[in-house]
């Protein structure tokens, strides 16, 4: 299969590859570096790359001034909460579609997908009004509900594509062995699809964490996650690059790491299996 590639060719590609990779990554890298600078170093001309006074004061300030941890806790609550609720709905649905398909299964799946394509602005007003009337504005519960619903189609799809790879005979064997439906799912299906469920969880967490339409429009402070927290830095308040960077680094670090782990599954989830 693989042929010997000339060393020079390989070195050329190494140089180009790293140059392009670093260029794309640069804004992230720069943000991380700036977060350790003093505000003065952050806006120095010419910019300082590595030789500056490294400091952690920005992180301290960010926490003190805007209570970073409260927003982070909200982000964690919202993404884990919506993912958990999503699993409760998606696993049974995906089980049904994968193992007891009817002629209409395909239509149901596509219809679910189509709800994902509904532009949020189309339903913003009613949701906003309903939330206002039920006192759900700026509440975690309300937002968990919304985030769970917008990610549910993707979760069902991902789980469905994973479940479909599990031979139905195994579930029938469990049925013959006397397993009830719930035991069939908890003892046989779930353990067998741990990788699939894990990547579904990862993807759902990432999407919920980064969701920035509903979180911006439906929260103000109490339930506000990191997307809102960062948005509050958009109003200029003098020299704040270093602090903005520290806040940004804190907001993206957890999800960046999760994302790196789940890059393969991401393709599957986001293309609904249309590209393998």
């Amino acid at each position, binding site marked *: 299969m693989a042929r010997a590639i000339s060393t020079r060719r390989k070195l050329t590609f190494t140089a180009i590859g790293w140059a392009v990779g670093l260029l794309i990554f640069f804004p992230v890298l720069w943000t991380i570096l700036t977060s350790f600078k003093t505000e003065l170093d952050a806006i120095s001309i010419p910019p300082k790359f590595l030789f500056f006074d490294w400091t952690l004061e920005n992180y301290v300030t960010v926490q003190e001034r805007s209570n970073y941890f409260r927003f982070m806790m909200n982000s964690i609550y919202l993404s884990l909460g919506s993912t958990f609720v999503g699993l409760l709905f998606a696993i049974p649905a995906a089980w049904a579609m994968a193992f007891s398909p009817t002629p209409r299964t395909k239509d149901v799946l596509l219809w679910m997908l189509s709800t994902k394509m509904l532009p949020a602005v189309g339903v913003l007003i009613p949701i906003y009004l309903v939330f206002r009337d039920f006192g759900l504005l700026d509440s975690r519960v309300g937002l968990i509900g919304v985030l769970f619903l917008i990610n549910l189609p993707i979760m069902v799809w991902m789980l469905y594509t994973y479940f479909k790879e599990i*031979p139905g*005979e195994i579930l029938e064997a469990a*049925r013959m*062995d006397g397993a009830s439906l719930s035991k069939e799912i908890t003892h046989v299906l779930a353990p067998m699809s741990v990788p699939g469920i894990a990547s579904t969880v990862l993807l759902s967490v990432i999407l919920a964490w980064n969701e920035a339409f509903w979180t911006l429009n439906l929260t103000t402070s109490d339930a506000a996650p990191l997307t809102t927290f960062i948005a509050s830095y958009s109003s200029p308040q003098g020299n704040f690059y270093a602090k903005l960077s520290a806040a940004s680094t804190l907001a993206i670090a957890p999800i960046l790491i999760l994302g790196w782990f789940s890059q393969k599954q991401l393709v599957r989830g986001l293309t609904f299996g249309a590209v393998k």
Partner: protein
Amino acid sequence: MGNIKLREVSKSFGSTKVIPSIDLDIEDGEFVVFVGPSGCGKSTLLRLIAGLEDVTGGQILIDGKDATGLAPAKRGLSMVFQSYALYPHMSVRGNIAFPLKMAGEDKATIDRKVGEAARVLNLTDYLDRKPRQLSGGQRQRVAIGRAIVREPEAFLFDEPLSNLDAALRVNMRLEISELHQQLKTTMIYVTHDQVEAMTMADKIVVLQAGNIEQVGSPLELYKAPRNRFVAGFIGSPKMNFVEGAEAQKHGAQTIGIRPEHIAISKGEGTWQGTVGVSEHLGSDTFLHVNVDGLGTITARADGEMDVRHGDRVSLTPDSSKIHKFDQNGLAIR
């Protein structure tokens, strides 16, 4: 006790009738093989008995009790699947113990039964391995182990050997037959391979298009096939069929003669022909002879017969072994 009775059992998928109507009695302790070409409904029939599919009409009686509406697990049957359907995340021990665990047996009983099954099936050394670390034959044995610990009324096998290579298949065939002699439990075995059917069965059920063509012991089917289909399906190489004038001499629409019932000589004989392909197996030689006016006839000769492509030979069918069929394909007796 494990006698199973099917009464006018039928099955449709949507508007397709897979099984029009079947009546069948399976006695306790019998080894019954359902055999037929793919798509004949044999696996569906097995799944109906297992309870993995609902019957469209009719009744299934197990031990004289109506089991038609019972859930699979409540029927007291166990099944060995074509893909073995082992639980990949459980060890061999976990797999064999699973049905016992589901039945709520206590730990000591489970351990004892699993140990026993493992001993019978030579799996004791592999109990803590995962299925993916086992060979095909071992996986097969785990699947059987999972089936026997439940001490079922009957075992159901769905083409269990089709994923094994030829040599292993012969071995497992013997092992399953031995197991049957040891346990003396009813076994229902589905296969498309008539050799498996002939070698293992007490009773063969030949199916075609959802209908039972014939039920009988292997030799009954071999000696007295009820129709052309059964005659052609049982026996290897296949029976030769001759139509036209030659058949009318025997007062039949079609006559059939098995390759092993044709004598070959270089001298005089009933039919003359030219040897096309000759297959030398060592123990036997199969000659495909282009008989003048009849077409290709397969004949079995002894292994060391020296014939080549293009040789002229004569064939003489053993007239007492000629099968006669009428225009509907039914045997004339």
